[in-house]
């Protein structure tokens, strides 16, 4: 049956239907009011859908087919590292011993989980070139917050909490960076990128003083450029007594070859859902984690997974200087299982191939596409690069290019980010795109450039073959309807 556009599960079903039967009560039933006072009880059952199992399955099957995932095709969404997610990981994360493990079942009954967390933490410390890792943060932004808190707690311990109020941030930074710094109580100061798209050490040195608690740098940065003065930059910050925080969302491009700790980072966060091939789940769960250098270790969140002398793994809560907890338990464990398996499958050689392949694909695309689109920063790039969609034709915007790509069966790149590029198109093919797919992408982009001149309305009205066409964002925000039925 072809569903009506916008149909929800609430639009289906009839009173009395249900999709899951439940066991009969097998202990003596007591009137519920004798267990819980009547005034605390709900007057009427919550208005949930009433559908049979077949209606439910058909509804969500239909919805699934309206989505585009990495499994559907190339997904060159810059900064997001939409690489292929190995299928085996879905089986492994569902092993009953893992999926069924209760976080409070005790260390003795959790040795498998703890060993996995411990080993993964060790590997990530090595990959970061740093000393200790916590896997508690649930995502990248949560990791940033954790990292900022560590810095703050450090300066508190030094009695410098009043002085060290400033976190520096390049203007190309991801939005979570300033937001996380702010949440941890810091003031944020922007550092302008120079004409190379990088932090200029000379300018930076002028900006830095004893109020600086640290700098947050994305390496390579969101233009896909490796900060070639990174050693000087780190040096400047360190000399001023600040910390270098590395946003590791882009680690995919250097993993297996270079370590943030080796270029001065004191904290690195991981987006395991980016670099280590765990699926994005339509927006999460991902998994975070940060590696830190030894001065910051005492402040890491509790509990920390440790290996005891006797070889047993344990949760260490005896950390009096810790910033405390960042979430209820130990992190997004099931996602960490996938990352662990991923690293094991690849090994050192594979990790090196990851960055090699990611950077190779990006530079290949860049070289071919810069003949057609404007490339504001024309340098060797790492895993991604940023074109400008401006100037193709009057009245044609980056948004139009993106939407037109959908008609070619391709997921659009990230658009309008980073903010320092006008009409940005941020393209990250990842190492899992084949040469054929890269060529198809170039082909589509060239066609679109032609269309922009010959028949711009093709772009402006795109996409044409999707379940819905362009949606009215303004209306959604002006008259928000966020629950069913309409208010």
């Amino acid at each position, binding site marked *: 049956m072809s569903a*009506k556009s916008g*149909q929800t*599960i609430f639009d289906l079903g009839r009173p009395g*239907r249900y999709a899951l039967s439940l066991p009969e009560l097998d202990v003596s039933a007591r009137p519920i009011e004798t267990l*819980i006072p009547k005034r*605390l009880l*709900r007057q009427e059952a*919550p208005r*949930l859908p*009433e*559908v049979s199992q077949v209606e439910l399955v058909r509804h969500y099957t239909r*919805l*699934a*087919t309206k*989505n585009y995932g*990495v*499994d559907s095709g190339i997904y060159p969404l810059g900064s997001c590292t939409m690489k292929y*997610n*190995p299928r085996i990981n879905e089986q492994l994360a569902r092993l009953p*011993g893992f999926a069924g*493990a*209760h*976080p*409070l*079942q*005790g260390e003795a009954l959790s040795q498998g989980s703890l060993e996995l967390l411990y080993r993964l933490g060790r*590997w990530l410390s*090595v990959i970061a070139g740093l000393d200790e890792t916590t896997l508690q943060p*649930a995502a990248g932004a949560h990791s940033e917050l954790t990292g900022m808190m560590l810095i703050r707690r450090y300066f508190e311990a030094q009695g410098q909490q009043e002085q060290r109020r400033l976190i520096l941030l390049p203007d190309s930074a991801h*939005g*979570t960076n300033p937001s996380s710094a*702010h949440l941890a109580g810091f003031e944020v100061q922007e550092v302008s990128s120079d004409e190379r798209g990088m932090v200029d050490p000379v300018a930076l040195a002028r900006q830095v003083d004893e109020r600086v608690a640290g700098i947050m740098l994305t390496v390579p940065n969101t233009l896909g450029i490796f900060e070639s003065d*990174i*050693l000087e930059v780190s040096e400047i910050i360190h000399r001023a007594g600040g910390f270098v925080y590395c946003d590791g969302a882009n680690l995919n491009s250097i993993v297996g070859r270079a370590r943030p700790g080796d270029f001065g980072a004191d904290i690195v966060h991981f987006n395991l*859902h980016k670099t280590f091939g765990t699926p994005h789940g*339509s*927006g999460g769960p991902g998994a975070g984690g940060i590696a830190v250098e030894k001065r910051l270790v005492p402040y890491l969140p*509790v509990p920390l997974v440790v290996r005891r002398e006797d070889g047993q793994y344990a949760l260490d809560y005896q950390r009096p200087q810790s910033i405390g*907890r960042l979430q*209820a338990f*130990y*992190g997004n*464990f099931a996602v960490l299982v996938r990352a662990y*398996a991923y690293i094991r499958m*690849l090994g050192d*050689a*594979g990790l090196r191939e*990851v960055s090699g392949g990611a950077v190779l694909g990006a530079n290949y695309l860049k*070289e071919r596409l810069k003949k057609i689109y404007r490339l504001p920063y024309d340098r060797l790039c790492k895993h991604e690069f940023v074109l400008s969609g401006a100037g193709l034709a009057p009245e044609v915007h980056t948004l139009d290019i993106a939407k037109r790509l*959908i008609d070619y069966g391709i997921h659009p790149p990230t658009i309008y980010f980073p903010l320092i590029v006008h009409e940005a198109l941020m393209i990250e093919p990842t190492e*899992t795109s*084949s040469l054929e797919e890269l060529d198809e992408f170039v082909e589509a982009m060239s066609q679109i450039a032609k269309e922009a001149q010959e028949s711009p309305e093709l772009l402006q009205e795109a996409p044409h073959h999707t379940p819905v*066409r*362009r949606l*009215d*964002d303004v209306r959604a*925000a002006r008259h*928000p309807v*966020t*629950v069913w039925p309409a208010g």
Partner: protein
Amino acid sequence: MSEFIPHTPQDQRQMLQTIGLSSIEELFSDIPQQILQRYRPLGLEPESELEVARHLRALAKKNANPDENICFIGGGIYDHYLPSVIDYFLQRGEFLTAYTPYQPEISQGTLTVLFEYQTMVAELTGMDVANASLYDGSTALAEAMLLARRVSGRSKFLMAQSLNPNYQAVLRTYAWAADLELITVPLDRNGQLDRSFLRQRLNSNDDIGGLLMQTPNFWGLIEDLSGLKELLGPALLCVSVNPIAAGLLEPPGACGADIVTGEGQVLGNAPNFGGPLLGLFACHKSYLRQLPGHVVGRTVDLDERTGYVMTLQAREQHIRRERATSNICTNQTLLALASTIYLASLGRQGLRRVAELCAQKAHYLAERIAALPGYALRWSGAPFFNEFAITTPVAPQTLLDHLRRRGILGGLSLEPYGDGQTLLIAVTERRSRAELDAYLQALKELKA
């Protein structure tokens, strides 16, 4: 060349040629040599799928086998039945491998699901609006505190001592970072929120931004919310709930709550050693533009067909940057999908029935344990839902070890939480009569 990277040596040559380079290494010439030279590998050989599967299987076996260990542990994570339809959809590549739905035309699947999810969360909590998920129940409550600070402009918060201690720890961390002060509201003699303390504290002062509490609380006791909002006045009532209990209990929204949060793991998500979890967040519609995280809204396309988009993005970090309502970016969408399918599966009557099964079975077990010599309900003056604290005649750990030898994970010892000789026991609809009786039998067999 691994199975995940499709570049053959010939492909590599062709690409390098186009770039004008002759080796992969040259692609990294922009990285200072010093840095590259310092690189140290992990010392890991690549392993095939077969070998990794064998290894992880062995690792998983070092945990308790859930097939052979009947779980009575709660404390925020519960062992509910997972309907089979859910996992099928979680595995569908179109949901599993998509990104946050920033391109709505090719994301109507996710967006529709999130719209359904928001509706269900609002319905269960009795609130007007909900967001599209947060990390977990504890951070959701922390975000509630931050929202309450934004709208009240006040920086002191009351925090119930009956709140899950792990949540308290998270609140303390977030409060410290946000320069907020937390004041603990002690328990009354029934194990519930001490209203007289509350009344006093609120009278003496008008600097309180909100009350942060939980129902059923950490000991499983149902808190009576009536009159709380009246006491609080302009301060926000922020309540963390167990959404399964919402099948039976009057929702906080009907009792004046301003913000309701909760842990959605119970709605069709596996325990997973504590993560990923699902932070529920709902509130009064006046706070819509203060919501943390993503929100999905309904709109129309160029042809006036209904569709869904992420909306009110001006609140979010990628637009508002340091002034965003939250720093959250990646959230827990796939768990929201699971929960939506879970609630749609149970339906209107099913959720109530699950809640009833939990409550009935928990009371069956509680009464019978309490009747055993030396055992008693830790708090007998307040109603509970599906979790209860029992004082025990022997050290809880001794008791747990004894049960464990009979294939029972008997609960949570409250000793580390400062409540000696006490065991916290959770019962879900998955527990059969036979399992409950096995628990009782095991207790009877324990020599004191």
